[in-house]
Every structure is written in structure tokens, then in C-alpha cells.
């Protein structure tokens, strides 16, 4: 990804240069509410900090939803895109986090760090549950079993027996913000910044995971599990590790969802929520990690605007877009970009050469 010349430069400046895209994106996103506030709302900078109503506040909410979707989709990308485990129960990973956190806060009135700890334990336990069946079933059968797990959870969470805790079909509501900085209604900007930090924290962590020696084994499992086994890797432990990491990440997305949304509906445990994750990583590009983030942004914005312009027909259009993507753009935005970027880079170099009359100073270094 990063070119060799840049990768060799060390120290703070080198790190800054290697990460310039990421840092730029973070800076832009931190400045984003202020820009909206000034340009669109015509209010001052203070309006953002004071949490005034307006486009800035609304768009921050939309961005938080994108962050939640991004964190959720990135965990699915690790399972499906990087490791190649065909799981159709990913919505459960999200919903367990969302519901556990909400119920712990509301019904058991735990302190929020304790509630987070409970979510962590629940996430690890369900990852172990998903991993336990791995040695028995493969491929499509594993997809069916995980779909089964998730469906059972979806059904149980909606049942009237648990209505006092999970709120049956209506969903979990009335979860108050546990501390002032986790309050999305009154301290939107602070909450926005926290979500932003978690979002990019998860992203950097995932990049490190995929680039680590263990990450190489994950990819090896996707490409040829028998061969990875023969090389002496106990693939079961690696798959368990993948599931645990993904489960914790998705549960984290779920907890943010509980804090951000006034109501957690059972929809987040249903098959459609898994399909959403699938759609996001398809848009962004499977197995690319970065794709999950870009896909989340594209998906949420597309959904929002289609809903605004076409009302009832929005679902139909999203479905059609999904089918066309599967047929014609199977590698998604990032995958297609990576396949083409070399050619684009060459073209840019040639253009620069033409303009400056013989090669810029830095450009030749960027070639691999």
C-alpha cells in the first residue's frame, strides 16, 4: 500500500508522511461540523460547541451513524473478506452488544464501565459459541447454522417473555446516557468526537491486525485452508481469534448504537442487518478493510438521499444497486481502485513529466 520509499522514512516526520491520508481525513472530519455550521447554517463556531439545532447537528448525527455502520462492517470484513468464513449471523454480534449494554444500564442499573465489561464478556462468549461449530460444519452449512443462531436470538429478543427487558417487537427504549460525555442529545459534538476517535482507532487497529503475522494466516485460511493446516498452523485457533476480535468490535458498534439511537429495534438482530454489512463491504470492496469505511459512508448517504427523493421506492433502488454491484463491480470501490491505481499513477507521472519537462523531484520515488 504505502510505497517503499515512504515506508523507510522513520521518526515522527516519517510517520506523519506515511499516515498523511488518514490524518487529513481525521482533521477534515473534526473541522466538518464547524464548516457546515458556518457555510450552511450561517452560525458561528460556538453553535457547534453549544449544541444548537441546525444542519451541523443533524449531519453530525448522520456521521455518527456512518461511524457505527463502519465499525460494524469492518468486523464483518475481517470475518468474510479477510478470513473467508461465510457467516450469516453477524447481526447477532451487533445486537448482542446493543441489547446487553442497554439492558445492563436500564434494568440492572450498572455503572457504564461495568456494563461495558459485561458486553465484552458476552461478545467473547458468543464468539466461542460461533467457533465451537466450526470444526463440524463448513461453507454453506456453516452459513446456515450461523443464520440459525442469529434467527433464534432475533426471535427470542422479540418474544413477549422478555418484554420487560428487551421491549418485545417495539425494541429497547429509555436508555439514559450514563455520563455527560456519552450523551448524544445534549453533548452531540463531544459524542461525535468520541465516535470519530473510536472509528479511526478501530480502523488503524484492524490494519495492524491484517498486516501482522497472524493476519497473514487469516488470508492464508481464506485462500487455502488445507495448505495453511499443512504448514503447521492450527487454523481453528486463528479462526477463533478472528471471531473474538470481530465479535468485540461489532458489539462495540452495538453499544454506540444503543447510546446514539433513542430506541434499539429488533431489526438490528435480523437478517437484513447482516445483509447491510454485506452490502457495505461489497460497495467498499471485500477484504480491503478501508473499503468497509468508505462503503459505510456511501451506503448511509445513498440510503438517506434515496429515501428523501424516492420515498417508497428507495428500498427497490437499493436492492437494484446491490444486484448490479454483485454482477458488475464485484471488487467494490477500493478493490477496483487498487486494481486501476497503478495505471492511474503511471498516467499521472507521464502528465507531470510532460508539464514540467522531465520528472518531478518526489514522483519517481512513488513508483514500485
Amino acid at each position, binding site marked *: 500500500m504505502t510505497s517503499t520509499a515512504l515506508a523507510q522514512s522513520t521518526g515522527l516526520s516519517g510517520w506523519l508522511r506515511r499516515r498523511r491520508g488518514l490524518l487529513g481525513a481525521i482533521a477534515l472530519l473534526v473541522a466538518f461540523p464547524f464548516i457546515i455550521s458556518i457555510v450552511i447554517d450561517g452560525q458561528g463556531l460556538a453553535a457547534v460547541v453549544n449544541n444548537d439545532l441546525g444542519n451541523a447537528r443533524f449531519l453530525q448525527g448522520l456521521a455518527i451513524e456512518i461511524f457505527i455502520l463502519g465499525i460494524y462492517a469492518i468486523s464483518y470484513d475481517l470475518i468474510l473478506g479477510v478470513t473467508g468464513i*461465510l457467516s450469516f449471523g453477524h447481526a447477532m454480534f451487533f445486537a448482542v452488544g446493543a441489547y446487553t449494554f442497554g439492558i445492563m444500564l436500564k434494568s440492572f442499573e450498572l455503572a457504564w464501565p461495568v456494563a461495558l465489561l459485561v458486553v465484552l464478556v458476552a461478545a467473547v462468549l458468543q464468539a466461542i459459541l460461533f467457533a465451537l*461449530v466450526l470444526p*463440524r*460444519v463448513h461453507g*454453506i*452449512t456453516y*452459513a*446456515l*447454522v450461523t*443464520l*440459525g*443462531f442469529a*434467527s*433464534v436470538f432475533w*426471535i*427470542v429478543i*422479540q*418474544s*413477549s*417473555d422478555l418484554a420487560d427487558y428487551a421491549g418485545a417487537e417495539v425494541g429497547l427504549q429509555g436508555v439514559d446516557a450514563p455520563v455527560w460525555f456519552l450523551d448524544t442529545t445534549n453533548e452531540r459534538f463531544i459524542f461525535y468526537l468520541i465516535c470519530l476517535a473510536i472509528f479511526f482507532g478501530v480502523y488503524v487497529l484492524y490494519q495492524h491486525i491484517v498486516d501482522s503475522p497472524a493476519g497473514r494466516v487469516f488470508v492464508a485460511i481464506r485462500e487455502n485452508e488445507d495448505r495453511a493446516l499443512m504448514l503447521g498452523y492450527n487454523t481453528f485457533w486463528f479462526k477463533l481469534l478472528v471471531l473474538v476480535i470481530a465479535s468485540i468490535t461489532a458489539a462495540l458498534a452495538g453499544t454506540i448504537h444503543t447510546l446514539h439511537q433513542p430506541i434499539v429495534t429488533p431489526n438490528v438482530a435480523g*437478517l*437484513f442487518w447482516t*445483509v447491510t454489512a*454485506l452490502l457495505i463491504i*461489497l460497495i467498499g470492496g471485500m477484504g480491503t478493510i478501508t473499503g468497509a469505511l468508505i462503503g459505510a459512508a456511501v451506503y448511509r448517504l445513498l440510503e438517506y438521499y434515496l429515501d428523501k427523493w424516492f420515498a*417508497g*421506492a428507495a*428500498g*427497490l433502488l*437499493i*436492492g*437494484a444497486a*446491490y*444486484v448490479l454491484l*454483485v*454482477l458488475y463491480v*464485484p471488487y467494490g470501490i477500493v478493490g477496483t481502485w487498487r486494481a486501476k491505481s497503478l495505471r492511474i499513477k503511471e498516467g499521472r507521472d507521464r502528465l507531470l513529466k510532460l508539464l514540467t519537462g522531465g520528472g518531478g523531484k518526489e514522483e519517481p520515488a512513488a513508483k514500485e
Partner: protein
Amino acid sequence: MSTETSDLRSQTSEAGPSKNRQRAEWLRENRVRVTVLAVLVFVFVVALLGLEREDWFETIMQGLSVGALTFLVVSGLSLIFGLMDVFNLAHGEFFMLGAYLGWTAYTRADTLLDVAIPLLLLAAPFALMPLWQRLAVSITLTGRARKATAWGFVIVGALAAFFTITRFPLVIWDAENFALTPANMTVQIDLGTHAPLPADTFSGPVIVAVLGVLLGGALIAFGFGTLRKPGTETEALDRRNYVAFGGLLLAALLLHLVKEPVNEWIFGLSTTWRFFLSMGISVLLVAAFGALVEVILIRPLYDRPIYQLMITLGLGFILIELVREVWGRPEFTMARPAAFAGTGEGCPGQGLGGFFSGCSTVEVFGGRLRVYNEGFVILVGIVVLVAVTLLLRRSRLGMVIRAGVEHPEMVEALGINVRRVFTMVFALGSGLAALGGVLAAPSIGLSSGMGAVFLLGAIVALAVGGLTSFPGAAVGALVVGLLQQIIIRYGQVGIPIPFVEEPFKPSPTVVPAASIVLMVIILLVLPTGLLGRSEK
């Protein structure tokens, strides 16, 4: 388990001197299977014995009824997965589509006729495909520009067709206006009245509408012709193409002329005959749709199986949204045909003969059954089971299918067009699902979520019975149906638990969960299902 001994049938039918030893061997190889089956039967028998006598007969029959509907969905799923390794996650939505189209043919045949006319016109230019291909040769663009141009033609054609189709007289319900909602129409049919919708005529000149649709179709067809790689051989344009083109145009014209009398005739039929007619129409339409789906969406993806799975998922999503757009979101029911709706004098019927008395309910062994749900549906399920089994065992197509499940490459090497068989099986499976949908419409009603519910049941049945085994699909459907009904029944009477005063009553929402738990347990104990073959 080795491959040759795992097939239950072939082993038990073999006779020889060492029969006992073979039997012992077979038992040893299949001990897990036999144990699971024995445990299942034991659990069912114990569960049924715990009920009152009139309850258990009702429960079994209701279980069979749900099992029959599930079987109609799962049979197609099993055939398709067995032959072409495509797990069609949209199969439940084919079931749903069947129900909605069946309702339309039954309640509003005039709408179906009205829509058929422009669709026939739209299809007509496709009959002249070789002509478009030949014309497309004159477009000298290559590569991406050619593709973009072709899609441009398709989009322009689709837009033209869309805007001119609305000029045709379409008599359609209106989900917004109460008097014209689908639910209200069902009530009218039930009462025996049939208020015709406001008669509609062509808006604007007829010629514009007709030519517009034809032009739209031609543009789309031309676009597809352009999409082919330049330089490939064009198909021959012969008399058959002109005959097909002319035939389609003539059919549209004829339909337009005889629309009114046909309408009168259909609505003059007794509701029973109309029900059978709508069953046939719905099955044919969905089967055609299934064939189209296989050719357009599934076929390009045979080398990317995971994407096939995803595309069927997306297709199901689209179909649900489509149904919500066209028929509206609220649920409604379909009127029950007269033969199964009798009340009054002499009803409910008594004993087994009561099934033919024309009553809506019948009393057998002290239990009260609905003739449609617990009689007709089960009957159709059994007929389909026998028919498909005969098709698989006795016909040439069935032979190819069975061979294709075992060794697709070998079948292809023998010179059989496997692709065409794939399309036919996909159409067959879709048609069976649609039949299930029409059958379910009068008993459980129509909703855009009905497909997902039955797909879940079908997946469980498939996993329980064995992913690629057709008899397994039937057994699985039976198990799912019985289990669901037994749990529902126990939800009403409660399960007595020792040392607890109040009997435990599972809430109705837990019913699907129970069958999924069963699926997970069986898949873990027996990954190939009860009757499935072990992996090659």
C-alpha cells in the same frame, strides 16, 4: 460413512445370502442416523401422547398441512441446490410472489389481462433478436464505449417503455383508497359480489402507446444485441423469428379484442374453478420468472458461488419491496373457494366422508379440521411429492437431474446441454414454490413477510433432511411442520413440569426458534442431515 453404503434405499433393496451381515454393517455405518431418527420419533410420540386424543389428531393434521406447504418450498430449494449448488435465498420470495399473483388472477383477473397486453408488445421485438444483432454490427465502437452505448440504448428503451405503458388502460387496485384496496376486494369476492373498477381507456392516441412500447422493446433488444462482442457470429434470421414476432403482436391484439368477454367468462366461473385457474396461471408466471432469473442473474456467476448466494439475497429483497409497492404494505387474505367454504345445513361434516361434503370444517375423531387447510393442502402436497418423485425416477429429465447431482462434468461430457437443464430445474423449483404460495394464500393470508417465514422453515427442513436429498426434503418438511404444531399446541395447554405448580407455556413467538434449535442440533450431530449423502 462411505459413499456407496450411505444411500438408504439402495442398501435395503439389495438381497443376497449375506443379508444379515450386510444389515449389521449398514447399521454400524449409519448408527448416528438411526439413533437420531429413533430419538426424533420417540420425542414426537411422547409429545403426542401427552395430549388429549382429539387434540393429537388435530395437531398431526395441522402439522401435515404446514409440512405440505413447507415441502412445496423446500422441494424446489433442494432440487436447485442439489443440481447446481445454488442456494436460492430468494426462494421464499418466489413463494410470496406466487401467492400475490395467484390472488391477482383469482380476485382481479382483469388487471392481469390488462398488464399482459403491453408486456406482450414489449416482448415482441425480442423475437427479432438476430435482426438487432445484425444491425448492431454497424456500430463500430469497441470496448468500454460500446458497452456504454449499449446500456444507453437499454436505459432509453426502458424509459420509453415505462412512460408509454402508463398510457395503456390498466384497471388496478389502489392501496391508498380504501374502496379499492386489495383487502376490500377480497371481502367483495367473499360476499359473491364483484364491483368492477372504473373502466379505463387509452390516454392519448392508441397508436402512440402501441408504437411507444414497441419502440421501447426494440431499443432494449438492440442494446442487448450491441452488448455482444463485435465479430461474433450472428444468429440466422429466418421465418421462425417473423412468425414469433407476428404471433406476439397478434396475441396482444386478440387479447385486447377479447378482453371483455374473457373477463366476463372468468368472473362467471365458480370460485372453485377460478381458484384452480389462478393456481395454474401463478405457477406458470413464476416458473417463467424463475427461468429468466436463472438466465440473467445466476448464469453469469457460476464461477463465483458466494456472489450467487448474495445475488439471490438481493433478489429476495427487491421482490419484497416490489410487492410492497404494487400490492401495498397491509396484509390481506384471499377468499376461500366455494368448495371449501360451505356452512349452514349439515355442517360441519362428520367422519372422513365429511371432507367431500362441501363444508368448511369437518369433525373427525372428536377433532375439528378445516377441509381446505387440513384436507386440500395435504392432498396437493402428496400429489406433488408423488409427481416429482415419478419425474425424477421415471423420466429422461429426471435421469439427467439425478446424474447431474452426482457428476455434472460427466453429464456434460455425454453431450447433454446441462445449462438448459439448469434453467428448467430452476423454473420447476420456482413453480413449485409458487404453487405453495397460492395454496397458502387462502389459509394464512398474504403479507410481504410470508416468504421469509417459509424460507426459514424450508432451510430447517433442508438441513434436517439432507441438503441434496429429495426424499430428505420431504422428511424434513414433515418434521418441521409437526414440531411447529406440537409446540403451538403445547403453548395452549402448557407443559406440566414436575415440582412446579403452573405448567410452562411457551409463547407463540418461540415456535420458529424451536425448529431452528432442532436444525442446529441435527447439523452438529449429523452434518449431512437425516437422509443426505456424505460428502464426496
